[in-house]
């Protein structure tokens, strides 16, 4: 599948944003110190700005941007519609949460709004993940890994951002850095498990079944319908050289997970906490963009079978 910049930015930025909002909500629900008033206010601001940037990026690939509002209407059947609604609903909830925590830190209202913010944020990420997980023609997405993985990456990347904001506010990353380090470890394991799963999958269909011939019939393309690329090949037939993919996987493992793990541990131990937690965020962002690029580039679509591609 073509790794379009708009969807890479959408899923990565909203991962950071809703992950951060989740941790802020849980932080207050678990009894954040009154001194964290400004941290929560600023954190919700950062989260909502990042989410907005991601959502704006997602509209860039639309053919008719001025009609984007119509996407809120089909929530009964469409995960994309549900994602849009959940994202919009999260704004007033998160703002009410930030306001409640600012006016009366640790009040029951602030705490319960914290839980609701966390649920709304995770719900939005889940809807995004289900857009991909529900697509039957793409075996690398339509599996049991996609939805939990998106939630794990959101919680992990949000934790690195939370640790950075905590360091900016209090000078130490404290528990937030431990969360980020644990998140990096979980995300690393989740990614390895995902790659192991998709590498071991067998093709969901063969060319014979795609053209209605009995299973096992040998079939190979003789003449293509057209001699230049069309929409289907550009959008669904994206190919990445295997050796490049292997190299990018190693880069993603190091930059997205291993380096942030080390930097988060350094921040936790108090070694240049600000620089360490900032580097953890920067590496996580770059690495997760690479990981997301691979999630698209290595996904194959059944329709490419008609053009003789392996899927």
């Amino acid at each position, binding site marked *: *599948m073509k790794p379009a910049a708009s969807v890479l930015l959408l899923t990565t930025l909203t991962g950071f944003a809703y992950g951060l909002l989740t941790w802020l909500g849980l932080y207050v629900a678990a009894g954040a110190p009154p001194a964290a008033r400004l941290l929560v206010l600023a954190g919700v601001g950062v989260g909502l700005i990042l989410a907005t940037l991601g959502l704006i990026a997602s509209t860039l*690939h*639309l*053919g*008719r*941007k001025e*009609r*984007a509002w*119509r*996407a*809120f*209407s*089909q929530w*009964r*059947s*469409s*995960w*994309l*519609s549900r994602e*849009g609604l959940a994202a919009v609903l999260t704004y007033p909830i998160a703002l009410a949460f930030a306001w409640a925590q600012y006016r009366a830190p640790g009040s029951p209202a602030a705490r319960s709004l914290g839980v609701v913010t966390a649920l709304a944020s995770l719900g939005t990420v889940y809807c995004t993940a289900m*857009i991909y997980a*529900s*697509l*039957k*023609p*793409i075996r690398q997405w339509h599996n049991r890994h996609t939805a939990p993985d998106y939630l794990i990456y959101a919680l992990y990347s949000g934790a690195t951002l939370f640790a950075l904001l905590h360091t900016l506010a209090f000078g130490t990353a404290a528990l937030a850095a431990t969360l980020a380090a644990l998140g990096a470890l979980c995300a690393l394991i989740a990614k390895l498990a995902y790659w192991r799963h998709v590498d071991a999958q067998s093709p*969901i*269909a063969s*060319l*014979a*079944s*795609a*053209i*209605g*011939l*009995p299973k096992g*019939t*040998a*079939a*190979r*393309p*003789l*003449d*293509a*319908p*057209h001699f*230049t*690329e*069309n*929409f*289907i090949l550009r*959008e*669904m037939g994206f190919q990445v050289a295997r050796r490049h993919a292997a190299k990018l996987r190693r880069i993603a493992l190091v930059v997205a997970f291993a380096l942030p793990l080390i930097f988060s541990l350094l921040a936790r131990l108090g070694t240049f906490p600000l620089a360490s937690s900032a580097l953890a965020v920067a590496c996580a962002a770059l690495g997760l963009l690479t990981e997301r690029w691979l999630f698209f580039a290595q996904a194959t*679509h*059944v*329709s*490419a079978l*008609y*053009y003789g591609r392996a899927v």
Partner: protein
Amino acid sequence: MTMLPQRGPEARKMGLVIDLDTCVGCHACAVNCKEWNTGGEAGILPDYDKYGEKPDGVWFNRIHSYETGSDGCSRTVNFPRSCLHCENPLCVTVCPTGASFKRAEDGIVLIDTDLCIGCKLCSWACPYGAREFDEDSGVMRKCTLCIDRIYDESLPEAEREPACVATCPAKARHFGDLADPHSKVSQLVAQRGGTDLLEELGYRPTNKYLPPRRAQIQTTPRETSGAASQGIGGALLKLLDKALSR
């Protein structure tokens, strides 16, 4: 409305039956489809870089040719590919705007291009690659089963069929109601063992494909193998063949 309509077993299922035995791969159906739909109610079907190096455009119908079989007994199968108007179309349910829909009365899957935002998700949801994006108007496009022909009462009744069916010189394309067991298309499917494409994915396509029949005429391989020509004569022939092949 992207929820699928409640359709009872008696609901009409208008669709195509395509005979892979008689299709000659001439692309006439694709060309007439393009011709009708670029001027019909569906509006212009765009072409990009028309006279350039990489011409491209939106087509509702694409004709592939495959070689099937092995051990020197292979055959050519020409394969027209277009929307199958599935009973379980994921392309409809993923649509966030309600632009994609399946008609309750005849099962035809359509796009309301006035509602489409061009997110392309429906094209990802279709395993048959039947939807193509219109870069000029920023919306998705697809086969309409020539909805502006099949119900047009100003046309003579015999012409009320999709453009691809009307033009096929090999009569490899048939149009009708696949829910009616007595229709010509249903009987063709029953007689010839019509199949669903990618049945394992569960989209339940309406259009059916009739598999190529077994060859009726026995043919013998025309090229003699190297082992058949032995001796000095054979060696001379080989030498001659080599010299002439230069």
